[in-house]
């Protein structure tokens, strides 16, 4: 089953790699936001460290939304979803495949964004790199997992592009808030235990919602 998921993911990534528009716009947006915020603030009035976590997460969130919007769009425009459903693969492996592809997409943007962020905002991330990457990974998994599930549903509704963010908002805010708080704690040099609470929440959120999405996905595609 994992193999089928991997096949689906590979196919998605292949398509994405061919066109490259989505990933490029995500990276460009990230750079844009970082630049704008950097020039827009008064360095004497506002310390970088205060603003930094929020800005970082704004860019990552946008990348995630971009990934999610195109996830099932791909199947719909090619009308290949029926084909996937006809194949002897379990529905959940389709979900898993989409999830992996979306995560890869967002991870790429984050991998580019994080170093740039450290550079532009002159923030020292190396001492806390490990925990920081963990926070980013956990939060990303959280909202991409829920987002992938929801995008399967919204694709076929009216106002699809509008509905997805609206549905996703209450589910994105908790992991986002925890991530911003954890990031802020880490960047400010606070002891690790402070961020620990948020990390545990993020981990719990991920476990619950990935499992939930995994089991609920078949209900969204079968008839």
């Amino acid at each position, binding site marked *: 089953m994992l193999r089928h998921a991997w096949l689906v993911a590979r196919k998605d990534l292949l398509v994405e790699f061919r066109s490259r528009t989505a990933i490029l716009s995500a990276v460009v947006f990230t750079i844009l936001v970082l630049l704008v915020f950097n020039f827009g603030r008064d360095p004497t009035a506002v310390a970088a460290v205060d603003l930094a976590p929020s800005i970082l997460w704004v860019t990552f969130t946008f990348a995630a939304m971009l990934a999610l919007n195109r996830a099932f769009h791909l199947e719909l425009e090619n009308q290949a979803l029926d084909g996937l459903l006809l194949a002897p693969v379990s529905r959940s492996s389709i979900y898993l495949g989409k999830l992996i592809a979306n995560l890869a997409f967002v991870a790429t943007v984050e991998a580019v964004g994080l170093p740039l962020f450290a550079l532009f905002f002159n923030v020292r991330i190396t001492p806390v790199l490990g925990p920081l990457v963990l926070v980013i990974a956990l939060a990303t998994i959280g909202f991409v997992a*829920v987002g992938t*599930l*929801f995008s399967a*549903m*919204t694709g*076929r*509704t*009216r*106002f699809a592009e509008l*509905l997805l963010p*609206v*549905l996703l*908002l*209450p*589910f994105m*805010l*908790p992991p986002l*808030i*925890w991530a911003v708080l954890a990031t802020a704690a880490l960047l400010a040099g606070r002891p690790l235990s402070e961020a620990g*609470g948020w990390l545990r*929440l993020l981990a*719990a*959120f991920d476990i*619950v*919602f990935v499992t*939930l999405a995994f089991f*609920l996905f078949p*209900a*969204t595609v079968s*008839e």
Partner: protein
Amino acid sequence: MKILKTGRWITVSGLALLAAVYVRALAFTPVERTQGMAQKIFYIHLPSAIWAEGAMIFVGVASIFFLFLKDARLDRFAEASAEVGLVFCTLVLTTGPIWGKPIWGTWWTWDARLTLTLLLFLMYVGYVLLRGAVTDPGLRARYAAVLGICGMSLVPFVHLSVYMFRTLHPQPIVIKPSAPSLPGEMLTTFLFSFVVFSILYVGFVTQRYALALLRERAEPHA
């Protein structure tokens, strides 16, 4: 229609009892020392809050059963509970600031509990919007069930977060691990109000369920 009539009766009695609660609250319950008269709104605020979250849990549970049993009644109940939950949630978000303004000096603050109640509100809105956006009834029921289960699962996280924050919002004094620390008279009034709100919940949901049923019958169906 019998369900609708039953629902109306329950709601009316609930509202009558609510009036009784307030008579008791205003005339027979002591005024809170630091907060004064503004605190009286607590007797609407807290039961609404409990039911706002409670309704979401009911939506979630009904949704789980619906996905297994495929019984349309469960879907109608979820639909009803969600809309009633939305109403209660709105009530919380309006009574909250009314209570807060005289005491905190501000209508709103981005503290944990308020933010997370707002999140609950957004979930309800999303649920109702999703139902509105799907035309096929079978698909609508399944999608709503999925969303309902996710919504219900988010509620405990929301609660946990609140405990992890030290905030402007009063710490939980009723629903917490140890015994409620509300003084006797107030506790009684609160419990009375909670019972009344439970009655109101049942009344509203029953009526809304009846409406859903009527609407389905009005549409041509195989």
